[in-house]
């Protein structure tokens, strides 16, 4: 068959080369005329004119009331044609929808087609289609139903899915298989765009899987592939079915209709193989069920046709993914060999791809084919070459690194594709950092990368490079040599042609010269200054780069020679419009003339190791609390903000925005409080000026160094706090001591904005907040990864793998650079375990490490104030402020929580002398169901009350569920009839577990307590979760009574320890993708801070501490009925560097928030 096609098609060019033969396209057709007209035109300009004319005429006709539907159909086809050529015909969209709605079946078909081509899912006009689709789904005409389902499977507005879902579901039982198949595919589409909507019909998917029509069954496999990818463990019971189906397909049991070039249902086979590989991964017993059918597939697929190769390739992948079986591996290896050696270039490509996939498990296979690989490396086809490089990248080690990197760089030199350049640049850097054979090679290679990749480079490359340089590794001698080499090469680069260097490289050069040019003997600072100065004149030199250059110059400016350079510069650029530049020039000039001050502000680099960084920015506490006192809104991390937004809608006890002073609001809260709460808050409102509630705590907790936004460093934003600090520079500076050790002098707090919340001050505050906390979201996964290889972990500043023997414990106290190797290969799980997966979690500039804090690339505007104040730990400056700031903050939170609950009840209720809300006074514990006694539970909290009923609740944690136990105490004499509780929550799934005496109508007798239990399952993790409810019953006088209430829960209520072995942990780690990294406060006063901190987390948040080795610990937990969340902790410079991973994107962020809170509470 295909031969026929190919022959026909190859014979065609002769036909086509001549002008369209007369009679082919209908001459009467307007479309034909248009198309022919366009083909005859030669210039783009003429074409544009013609089409515009055409569009005008179409527009005229579609809006005319006299146009019939048939004409409309014709017009629509012409409009589609114009759109295809790239001319917008948006005026016709609405008419396409109209056509689908009003036309006859055939018009409809064109209308639907036009809609699916014109509009995408998010287009608002699609809403107008919903009714039409609904109508057609109900049509008795099968073809109309088909059309509706087809359009639904392509474009449908997400929000409107519920409207048609029941109808589509119903179609799953339709007698016609084509309708069933299209319905399944429509559901697949729904699953992709809104998985939650179709959760309830999983059982129907199973039915589709068992459909007697193979077409319907294979359509359902699309859904299964998605679901299995997400959660393989839930579908293990289906393995037998999948295997049986595959066996039948391979055995040729399907109708011949499904054959493709006499291969039975290849698409179906491949889909099944994929599902099986996911199910058999890391699961021996499941894998064993598949061996036979895989063997069979390999054996059957022997015909020499592309489609059989496609099946073979998939088979090989599956065999290498599931639990290995020697016999199958052997066959698969032979298969790969056939691919690689094939003269057909497509197969060779696939062979290389397969080799890349398996090489980590079977390096020998690459060895066997080394000659072929070498040939491919010089292949004329760049795609083959690129694939070969990918393979080489996977097999790089200490010995072959030079060659492979050379090959990669060679490719990089000729690459014109930005995407490839960035990708390969990252790969070369990774290899160079991991395997560099010597220092000069490393510097040379990195120079080439900086030059070739230029400014598109991923920002973490220069970052980790500088980090490596500053922190060093192994011996101090080598470090010095490395720095010397870097300085040498940069000096010569600057002497040659600095104008050609990319910005990022210039930044790196400036920093290195500023820091380390003293390493080179005989290199005068003034010489370096003269080398750097011309960079300021370069036109393409960005303001950011200039800041780097000037920062470097400032560090070096000692001696009269430098002063003269500084003055020259000041004269030349003094009139610059760039205020940052002028400011820095001014600093430079000032410091160059005052050696004493310079030494104090920028101590020599010897003291770098002892620098401590206050990542909590506690030195800003004073500033923050003053700002707060002046009425600024406390800072909240984004997730919290969202939560509170929701709360604020219900309750207005939180201070609104900026206008309402905090003290006022807290006292007004207090006025409405019950006595117990009042007493608690009175102490608090007393020192309301010191109050830095959530703002203070959040500020302390969130690391601040994430100044990298999506677009890179936010230089301008970061400037503001410096400038604020600058107004009192001499004063601030005076308390800094030499050597960077923490000064003991009580510090003058940072200048606060002028008293009285003027508009200007507020804007500044907003800017401060936005620049300090911008980009707090977790960064996306780094590096593209090929064919399911474990995501290549960036090894940051770990360069060599020499000290293999030295365990991770034998590290120098300050650094972490020399930790032992960690290979991403699954086979070296042992080594990965030793390290506790120690790929330094803090490589992307999220933590200020000792040495690079001031000048790290993340901090690319290392200005005077920056390098002077922030790296030096000013925490001890505020020994009294700190706890003071913390305590009220906790109290405040409790306060607001309590107010939340009482607020709802306050309506028309007098405060009793004995607080009737106090749940403990109601003695509820005896009413707790027996089976729940002894389980961990929260305190009893009041929900609501009215004249006769008091509702309280507590949350009980069992191993597999979280239960909300609601106590309804009826203190009156008469029974409350028809009592009912309703609860809803956006974040939680609430289901009743066991109730009072009756199911439907319930009565709460006088002087009794009824207990209701609800099981809570989070639908998505968030920091706080709110449960809204309503209690309704009939009062004795028959009047219906209804009281709303709410109950707040937090994430830890739904976190359970996850017990895994270290090995399992390693596997899980590689399987999870959503990263969050952060520095946490360490309980440093404890004898074993790491252990103490982890145990605190364990106790507070129910985490399981899997293992602690030396300065690292791994912790695992699990969301209730949800995925695991893994945490890797490492001691780093006096704080706990944690790296969280989970398959659920929000989970790490939320958990981190609670970790911070758990550690902040003393």
């Amino acid at each position: 068959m295909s031969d026929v096609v190919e022959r026909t098609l190859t014979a065609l060019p002769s036909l086509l080369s001549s002008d369209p033969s007369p009679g082919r396209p209908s001459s009467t057709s307007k479309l034909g005329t248009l198309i022919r007209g366009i083909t005859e035109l030669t210039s783009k300009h003429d074409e544009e004119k013609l089409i515009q004319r055409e569009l005008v005429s179409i527009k005229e006709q579609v809006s005319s009331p006299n146009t019939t539907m048939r004409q409309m159909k014709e017009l629509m086809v012409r409009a589609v044609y114009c759109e295809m050529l790239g001319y917008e015909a948006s005026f016709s969209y609405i008419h396409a929808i109209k056509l689908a709605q009003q036309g006859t079946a055939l018009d409809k078909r064109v209308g639907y087609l036009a809609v699916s081509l014109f509009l995408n899912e998010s287009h608002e006009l699609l809403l107008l289609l919903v009714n039409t689709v609904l109508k057609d789904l109900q049509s008795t005409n099968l073809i109309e139903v088909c059309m509706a389902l087809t359009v639904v499977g392509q474009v449908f507005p997400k929000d409107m899915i519920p409207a048609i879902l029941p109808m589509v579901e119903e179609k799953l039982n339709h007698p016609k298989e084509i309708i069933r198949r299209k319905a399944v595919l429509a559901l697949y589409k729904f699953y992709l765009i809104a998985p939650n909507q179709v959760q309830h019909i999983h059982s129907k998917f199973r039915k589709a899987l068992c459909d007697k029509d193979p077409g319907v069954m294979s359509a359902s496999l699309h859904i299964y592939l998605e679901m299995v990818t997400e959660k393989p463990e839930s579908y293990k019971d289906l393995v037998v079915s999948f295997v049986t189906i595959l066996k039948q397909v391979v055995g040729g049991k399907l109708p011949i209709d499904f054959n493709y070039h006499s291969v039975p249902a290849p698409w179906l086979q491949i889909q099944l193989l994929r599902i099986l590989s996911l199910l058999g991964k890391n699961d021996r017993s499941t894998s064993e069920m598949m061996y036979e059918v895989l063997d069979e597939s390999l054996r059957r697929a022997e015909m020499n046709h592309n489609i059989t190769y496609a099946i073979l390739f998939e088979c090989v992948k599956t065999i290498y993914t599931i639990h290995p079986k020697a016999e199958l591996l052997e066959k698969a290896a032979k298969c790969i060999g056939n691919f690689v050696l094939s003269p057909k270039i497509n197969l060779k490509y696939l062979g290389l791809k397969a080799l890349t996939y398996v090489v980590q498990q079977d390096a020998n296979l690459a060895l066997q084919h080394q000659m072929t690989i070498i040939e491919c490396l010089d292949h004329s086809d760049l795609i083959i070459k690129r694939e070969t490089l990918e393979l080489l990248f996977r097999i790089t080690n200490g010995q072959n690194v030079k060659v492979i990197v050379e090959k990669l760089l060679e490719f990089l030199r000729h690459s014109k594709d930005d995407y490839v350049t960035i990708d390969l640049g990252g790969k070369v850097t990774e290899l160079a950092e991991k395997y560099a054979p010597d220092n000069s090679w490393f510097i040379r290679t990195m120079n080439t990368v900086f030059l070739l990749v230029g400014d598109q480079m991923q920002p973490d490359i220069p970052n980790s490079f500088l980090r490596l340089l500053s922190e060093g590794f192994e011996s101090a001698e080598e470090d010095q040599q490395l720095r010397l080499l870097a300085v040498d090469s940069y000096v010569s680069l600057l002497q040659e042609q600095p104008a050609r260097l990319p910005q990022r490289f210039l930044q790196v050069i400036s920093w290195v010269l500023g820091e380390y040019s003293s390493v080179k003997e005989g290199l005068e600072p003034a010489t370096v200054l003269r080398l750097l100065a011309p960079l300021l004149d370069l036109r393409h030199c960005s303001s950011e780069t200039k800041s780097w250059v000037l920062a470097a110059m400032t560090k070096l400016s000692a001696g009269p020679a430098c002063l003269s350079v500084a003055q020259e510069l000041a004269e030349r650029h003094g009139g610059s419009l760039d205020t940052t530049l002028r400011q820095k020039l001014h600093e430079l000039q000032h410091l160059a003339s005052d050696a004493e001050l310079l030494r104090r502000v920028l101590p020599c680099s010897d003291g770098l190791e002892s620098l401590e960084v206050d990542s909590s920015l506690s030195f800003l506490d004073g500033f923050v609390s003053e700002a707060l006192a002046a009425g600024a809104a406390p800072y909240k991390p984004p997730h919290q903000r969202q939560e509170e937004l929701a709360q604020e809608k219900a309750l207005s006890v939180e201070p609104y925005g900026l206008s309402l002073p905090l003290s006022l609001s807290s006292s007004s809260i207090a006025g409405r409080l019950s006595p117990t709460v009042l007493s608690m808050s009175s102490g608090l409102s007393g020192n309301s000026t010191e109050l830095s509630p959530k703002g203070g705590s959040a500020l302390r907790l969130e690391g601040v160094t994430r100044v990298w936004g999506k677009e890179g460093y936010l230089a301008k934003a970061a400037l503001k706090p410096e400038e604020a600090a600058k107004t009192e520079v001499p004063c601030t500076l005076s308390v800094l001591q030499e050597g960077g050790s923490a000064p003991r002098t009580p510090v003058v707090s940072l200048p606060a904005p002028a008293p009285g919340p003027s508009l200007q001050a507020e804007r500044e505050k907003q800017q401060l907040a936005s620049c300090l906390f911008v980009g707090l979201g977790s960064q996306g996964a780094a590096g593209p990864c090929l064919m399911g290889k474990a995501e290549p972990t960036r090894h940051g500043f770990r360069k060599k793998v020499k000290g293999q023997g030295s365990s991770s414990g034998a590290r120098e106290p300050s650094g972490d650079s020399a930790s032992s190797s960690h290979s991403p290969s699954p086979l070296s799980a042992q080594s990965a375990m030793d390290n506790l997966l120690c790929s330094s979690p803090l490589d992307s500039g999220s933590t200020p490490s000792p040495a690079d804090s001031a000048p790290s690339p993340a901090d690319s505007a290392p200005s005077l104030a920056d390098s002077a104040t922030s790296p030096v730990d000013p925490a001890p400056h505020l020994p009294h402020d700190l706890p003071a700031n913390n305590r009220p903050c906790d109290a405040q939170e409790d306060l607001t929580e309590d107010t939340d609950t009482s607020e709802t009840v306050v309506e028309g209720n007098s405060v009793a002398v004995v607080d009737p809300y106090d749940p403990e006074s109601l003695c509820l514990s005896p009413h707790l169901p027996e089976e729940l006694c002894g389980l961990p539970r929260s305190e009893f909290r009041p929900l609501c009350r009215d004249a006769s009923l008091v509702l309280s609740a507590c949350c009980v944690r069992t191993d597999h569920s979280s239960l909300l136990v609601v106590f309804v105490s009826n203190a009156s004499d008469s029974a409350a009839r028809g009592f009912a509780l309703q609860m809803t929550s956006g974040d939680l799934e609430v289901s009743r577990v066991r109730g009072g005496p009756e199911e439907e109508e319930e009565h709460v007798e006088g002087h009794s307590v009824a207990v209701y239990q609800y099981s809570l399952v989070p639908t998505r993790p968030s920091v706080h979760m709110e449960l809204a409810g309503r209690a309704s019953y009939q009062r004795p006088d028959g009047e219906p009574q209804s009281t709303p209430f709410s109950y707040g829960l937090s994430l830890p209520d739904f976190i359970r320890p996850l017990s895994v072995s270290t090995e399992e942990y390693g596997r899980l780690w590689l399987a999870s993708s959503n990263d969050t990294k952060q520095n946490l406060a360490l309980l440093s006063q404890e004898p074993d801070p790491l252990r103490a901190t982890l145990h605190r987390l364990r106790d507070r948040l129910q985490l399981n501490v899997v293992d602690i080795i030396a300065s690292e610990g791994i912790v695992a937990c699990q969301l209730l009925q949800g995925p695991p969340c893994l945490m890797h902790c490492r001691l780093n410079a006096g704080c706990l560097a944690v790296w969280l991973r989970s398959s659920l994107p929000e989970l790490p962020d939320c958990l981190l928030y609670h970790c911070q809170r758990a550690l902040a509470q003393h």
Partner: protein
Amino acid sequence: MMHFLLLFSRQGRLRLQKWFTPTPEREKKKIIRDMTAMVLARKPKTCNFLHWMDLKVVYKRYASLFFCLAIDDQENELLALEILHRYVELLDKYFGNVCELDIIFNFEKAYFILDEFLIGGEVQETSKQTVARCIEASDMLQEDDNSDWYDVELFG
């Protein structure tokens, strides 16, 4: 999962475009430009696969027409090649000795066939007979329709 399918001539003229994932107009134009440039620049005896951003592009030339399909990185390239081939077979069955002109002048038919074969970026129906039957059934609807612009027998 497939992302888009483009059909264009040797001169780089677009004949058909189908987007399986929502793509902004600007991006579409850029992709079309990139694809025609990249595919047309390929030399003979090179493989039928390309990289584009993080996608794989599988292309094949049939007579004067290039068929170009973008798939996810982890998809099977050979299988994608067969998808293109099956589409050509379907067109051939419908038009009978299909040529570029058939697709130019009856592009909406080509879309109809495509919609029966692929949907939402996945293969919907691989059986040639079933797809043909389905298209035929829909075409039957027009029996009573004497459209003059619509002309199936464009060639003899």
